[in-house]
């Protein structure tokens, strides 16, 4: 294509046009406006594209075309980004996001800082890894391009006609019509479905959550008379006790919780909240806890009952049952927790539980009630039942009933949208067979998945970024979705599909449908058309809205819960010898498996295990040693005739009776990833021929009282003798070097932690840095007179959630390299999160440390580059010039932090659709070139030019690298270190602040602030 391929690195522009054409013509701007509120109809927009029509020969000047818009629009300046507020489609939490759109393509997702849920007006714009990765799934080639009937592409007219005909017979014959969806909290879609099912004599809308919180909802239904989730306000908590709830990782609304949790634990404002975590496996939340107590799944009910009795004793309200028997150490720990909970002011403690067992959740509600944690919104307690949460609405028992109905052949028509029961329900296997009996099975899935494969009709919904939609995460608060790109395929919004199938005249567009629903359900009653227009425009612009009308509809009973007859569940039978209790859990990236087609999330290492591209059977070190199992040994888990084979992984901090297995893997269609990554004589494909990424373990799920049981199933575990080395990005887990090589050595001082007492004590907590001040050898030639960029990372705030990793990947065009390359520790993430274990056996502490280019002022990497491809800017940036790099890798060898990444192969690939996600402001690196974190220099340049064009100085906080920008915990602060008033300077001046490997005198520009734990013993301190 060009005469000098080595000098030319393909960028996004080169691959754009044909891909756009392929996907149905040039895509215009989003259909609504954030930046300019006066929305107007677009005239024909040809899209600004630059075509590279290469000459066949080695001409010196290949012809490039420049094709301008036919009709300009004030909204777009080619080369500048537009931002639109919309709704995240990553999970049911309903966070508000901003989508960055360049030349009609969304390329980056960020949190909406003004959104009441995940932004809450703090200026923080956190978005989790999943939210940010959804932009990639937009460009997924495997998404259906249009409706499918009986396995063949069909037109919407034909499909609608066929469905309506079948429905007509059902309407008269009276068969059951069921709509099975994931959690839907948005009024528009709910109204559409409700009016659809209302048209049938036996119509019902059932919601199901792949990660169920059914017991929690049912417990509140039984106790308070409202099947709702209280809105948990971690920011108001001073003591948190979590029983197996991974609220920072995957539970209910992790971004919001992370934000609130870190705010409650802010060290600069009084005593930080204390966090106890009682869990059977090592979770992300457990990693952040001050005190972490390991218990077996079977002990959980007993522990809760024990705690309830303890608290009740303090409250002077004896419960009707005695304190359950627990082990001595657990009893001691629970006594301490009870003390802490009780000492905290009423309404400021919070007990949460991830169990899907009704009694457990009732006990938790009881404890919270005794502690005064329930209240109305005004009461400012930790559990808000008035503005309750709608983030989980699934009802396992209803699903169970549906499964039985289907098996009994009572269902005439089943519509499945936003869920995948054949994949994630325990009865998956029988369900697949039973579904054949359903007369009309319609899936609205965006792709052919386990469920839609059985469906007669697949009527694909839009991608979230193509949709008009809304969500009501908490009562009265709406997140508004507007499309940020014209649909890439011939898809149709779910609400509109149901409107069409109700047989009435459906509105012309998704937007009209939503406006109609808003007029009916959301907007203030009796608003004038002009007032509605204002309300609508403002809501779409902001991406969120308050609806007093919806708020007032929420009726939560705040009466004393009915606690009579609460009987703690009997302690589960102890495991028979040789059996282990299986704990199935979601991972940060995969959740319930809905993101299994997103390569970014597959390559995102699990924050705890650091494994990518696979699930595994995690075993405690003692258990593994007892069974003679090593990392990567394939083991079989067998229970009730079902056998699953998985590679083993040794996981410190896990209960020895437990085998923990991630959910969400083994999805149909993931064999597509066989081709991802380079292929050469010694490479192994990411997925074995015909296989899937990981293994589906839903057959190990149980059902108990109709609810899904995730933990406790007894399995027999055996070694199969096969080996499957796991792709891990971190091989060695501790800061202490191996004892057999250097006995008795202290941990290395990379990620430091202090106890709260040490921190409070000025001298002890003073600069945590070990070592001595280094004497520079050279005179200092280089004053940084203007800006001197620096980053402060607070290890107390960092939970390890990995949002920054994906933010960096999306912002900086970081390639996906595939399992084999990750196995060779060649993942390309510029920002990795180091996870260190300290301690032995179960009693393990975890510390996370984001590690990225430290932008050293005395950078060892720069000195050794023979061709000046890396050197220092006068603003303190360690610059890497890709086009100059010849690839000696000397810089990487000489980097004490090993944060440089090398393009071992040609990682950029020719998928023109997927390449639409590339950021045109960052060069796509070719093979043989070193790359690394640049502090998002493209953002620095953009803002600097903006400020200079406006003849003003840069504001503190105006520039945010992608990682700092995305952090829900506000753990990263970027700014000018020369400005004493900047936030970063103030953070650096904090006495917890230190620099990693400072004694090498490399003068990093990244400062870390030591982790502070509220516990007694010193853990991991170098002296």
């Amino acid at each position: 294509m060009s005469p000098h391929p080595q000098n030319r690195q393909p960028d996004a522009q080169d691959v754009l046009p044909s891909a756009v054409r392929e996907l149905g013509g040039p895509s215009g701007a989003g259909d609504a406006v954030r930046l300019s509120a006066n929305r107007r109809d677009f005239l024909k927009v040809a899209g600004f594209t630059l075509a590279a029509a290469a000459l066949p020969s080695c001409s010196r000047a290949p012809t490039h075309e420049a094709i301008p818009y036919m009709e300009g629009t004030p909204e777009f300046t080619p080369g500048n980004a537009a931002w639109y507020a919309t709704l995240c489609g990553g999970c049911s939490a309903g966070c508000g996001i901003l989508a960055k759109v360049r030349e009609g393509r969304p390329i980056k997702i960020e949190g909406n800082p003004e959104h009441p849920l995940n932004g809450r007006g703090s200026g923080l714009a956190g978005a989790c890894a999943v939210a940010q990765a959804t932009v990639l799934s937009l460009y997924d080639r495997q998404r259906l391009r249009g409706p499918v009937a009986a396995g063949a592409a069909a037109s919407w007219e034909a499909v609608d006609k066929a469905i309506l005909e079948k429905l007509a017979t059902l309407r008269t014959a009276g068969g059951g019509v069921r709509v099975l969806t994931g959690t839907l909290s948005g009024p528009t879609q709910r109204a559409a479905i409700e009016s659809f099912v209302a048209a049938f004599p036996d119509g019902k809308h059932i919601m199901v959550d792949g990660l169920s919180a059914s017991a929690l909802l049912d417990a509140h239904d039984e106790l308070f008379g409202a099947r709702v989730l209280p809105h948990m306000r971690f920011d108001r908590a001073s003591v948190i006790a979590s029983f197996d709830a991974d609220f920072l990782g995957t539970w209910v609304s992790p971004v919001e919780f992370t934000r609130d949790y870190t705010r409650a634990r802010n060290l600069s404002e009084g005593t930080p909240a204390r966090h106890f975590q009682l869990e059977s496996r090592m979770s992300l939340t457990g990693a952040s806890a001050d005190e972490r107590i390991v218990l077996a799944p079977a002990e959980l009910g007993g522990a809760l009952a024990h705690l309830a009795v303890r608290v009740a004793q303090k409250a002077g309200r004896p419960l009707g049952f005695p304190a359950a028997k627990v082990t001595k150490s657990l009893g001691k720990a629970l006594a301490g927790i009870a003390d802490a909970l009780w000492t905290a002011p009423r309404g400021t403690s919070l007990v949460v539980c991830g169990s899907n067992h009704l009694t457990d959740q009732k006990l938790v509600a009881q404890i919270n009630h005794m502690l005064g944690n329930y209240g109305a919104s005004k009461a400012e307690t930790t559990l808000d039942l008035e503005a309750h949460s709608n983030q989980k609405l699934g009802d396992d028992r209803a699903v169970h009933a549906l499964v039985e109905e289907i098996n009994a052949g009572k269902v005439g028509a089943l519509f499945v949208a936003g869920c995948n029961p054949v994949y994630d329900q325990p009865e998956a296997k029988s369900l697949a067979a039973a579904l054949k009996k359903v007369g009309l099975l319609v899936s609205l899935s965006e792709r052919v998945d386990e469920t839609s494969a059985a469906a007669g009709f697949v009527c694909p919904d839009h991608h979230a970024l193509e949709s008009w939609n809304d969500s009501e995460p908490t009562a009265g608060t709406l997140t508004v979705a507007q499309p940020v790109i014209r649909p890439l395929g011939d898809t149709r919004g779910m609400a509109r599909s149901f409107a069409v199938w109700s047989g009435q005249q459906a509105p012309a567009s998704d937007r009209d449908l939503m406006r109609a629903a808003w007029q009916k359900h959301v907007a203030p009653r009796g608003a004038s058309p002009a007032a509605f227009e204002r309300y609508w425009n403002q809501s779409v612009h902001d991406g969120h809205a308050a609806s007093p009308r919806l708020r007032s509809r929420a009726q939560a009973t705040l009466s004393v819960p009915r606690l009579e007859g609460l009987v703690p569940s009997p302690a589960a039978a102890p495991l028979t010898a040789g059996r282990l209790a299986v704990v199935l859990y979601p991972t940060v990236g995969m959740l319930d498996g809905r993101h299994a087609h997103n390569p970014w999330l597959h390559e995102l290492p699990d924050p705890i295990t650091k494994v990518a591209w696979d699930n595994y059977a995690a075993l405690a070190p003692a258990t593994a040693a007892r069974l003679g199992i090593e990392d990567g040994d394939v083991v079989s888990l067998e229970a009730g005739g079902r056998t699953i084979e998985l590679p083993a992984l040794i996981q410190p901090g896990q209960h020895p009776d437990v085998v923990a297995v991630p959910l969400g893997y083994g999805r149909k269609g993931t064999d597509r990833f066989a081709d991802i990554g380079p292929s050469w004589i010694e490479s192994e494909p990411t997925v074995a021929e015909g296989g899937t990424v990981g293994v589906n373990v839903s057959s190990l799920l149980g059902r108990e009282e109709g609810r899904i049981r995730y933990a406790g199933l007894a399995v027999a575990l055996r070694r199969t003798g096969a080996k499957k080395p796991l792709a891990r990005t971190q091989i060695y887990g501790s800061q202490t070097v191996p004892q057999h090589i250097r006995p008795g050595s202290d941990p290395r001082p990379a990620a430091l932690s202090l106890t709260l007492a040490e921190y409070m004590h000025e001298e002890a907590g003073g600069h945590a840095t070990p070592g001595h001040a280094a004497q520079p050898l050279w005179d200092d030639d280089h004053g940084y007179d203007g800006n001197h960029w620096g980053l402060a990372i607070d290890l107390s705030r960092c939970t390890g959630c990995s949002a920054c990793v994906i933010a960096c990947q999306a912002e900086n065009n970081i390639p996906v390299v595939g399992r084999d390359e990750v196995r060779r520790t060649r993942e390309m993430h510029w920002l990795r999160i180091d996870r260190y274990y300290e301690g032995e056996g179960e009693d393990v502490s975890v510390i996370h440390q984001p590690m990225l280019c430290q932008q050293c002022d005395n950078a060892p990497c720069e000195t050794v580059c023979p061709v000046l491809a890396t050197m220092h800017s006068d603003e303190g940036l360690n610059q890497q010039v890709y086009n100059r790099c010849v690839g000696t890798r000397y810089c990487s060898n000489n980097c004490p932090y090993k944060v440089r990444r090398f393009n071992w192969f040609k990682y950029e690939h020719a998928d023109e659709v997927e390449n639409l996600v590339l950021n045109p402001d960052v060069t796509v690196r070719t093979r043989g070139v070193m790359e690394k974190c640049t502090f998002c220099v493209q953002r620095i340049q953009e803002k600097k030019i903006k400020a200079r064009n406006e003849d003003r100085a840069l504001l503190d906080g105006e520039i945010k690298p992608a990682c700092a920008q995305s952090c829900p915990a506000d753990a990263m602060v970027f700014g000018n270190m020369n400005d004493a008033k900047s936030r970063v300077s103030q953070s650096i001046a904090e006495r917890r602040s230190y620099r990693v490997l400072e004694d090498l005198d490399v003068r990093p520009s990244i400062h870390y602030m030591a982790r502070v734990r509220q516990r007694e013993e010193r853990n991991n301190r170098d002296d």
Partner: protein
Amino acid sequence: MTHRFVLGTFRSEDDVLGVVKAVRARKLSLHDVYTPYAVHGLDEAMGLRPSRLTWVCFLAGAVGFGLTMLFQYYTSAFDWPLNVGGKPYNSLPAFIPIAFEATVLFAGMAVVIALFIRCGLYPGKKAKIPGPRVTNDRFVVVVRLDSADASAEDVQMLMEGFGVEAVDERVGGVA
């Protein structure tokens, strides 16, 4: 004017050394000596002046060192000063290894080129040798007869005293 040469072929270096000394003692013009290897002491026996190639070597080395140092200083501290790893623009100690290598390179190449020029050696030059065996196992001492009346016999007599193998008289050149 055309010279006449008397060529004596010898079999051992001791004989050569002897005859050379004798020729010079007789004040005969010693034109040249051809040997298959470097005979030590022969240059002094022939009374050759020491070569000045040493100076070429030294000067070229000095030039190499100076130029390289200057070039390194110019490019890194003057032409475009760049901050590399916080080191000063003029990182003098870091320039020394390359300057040293350049010194050796310049000196070595210059002295060899000078040798070729001084000895008139170049590819394709036709070697003018008094006989094919001087590069194998014979030594040839060439005495030039300066005057027309000088007698080749005298020279031959002298050479025979040193066990000459063959004596030859040539006009115009040795080859």
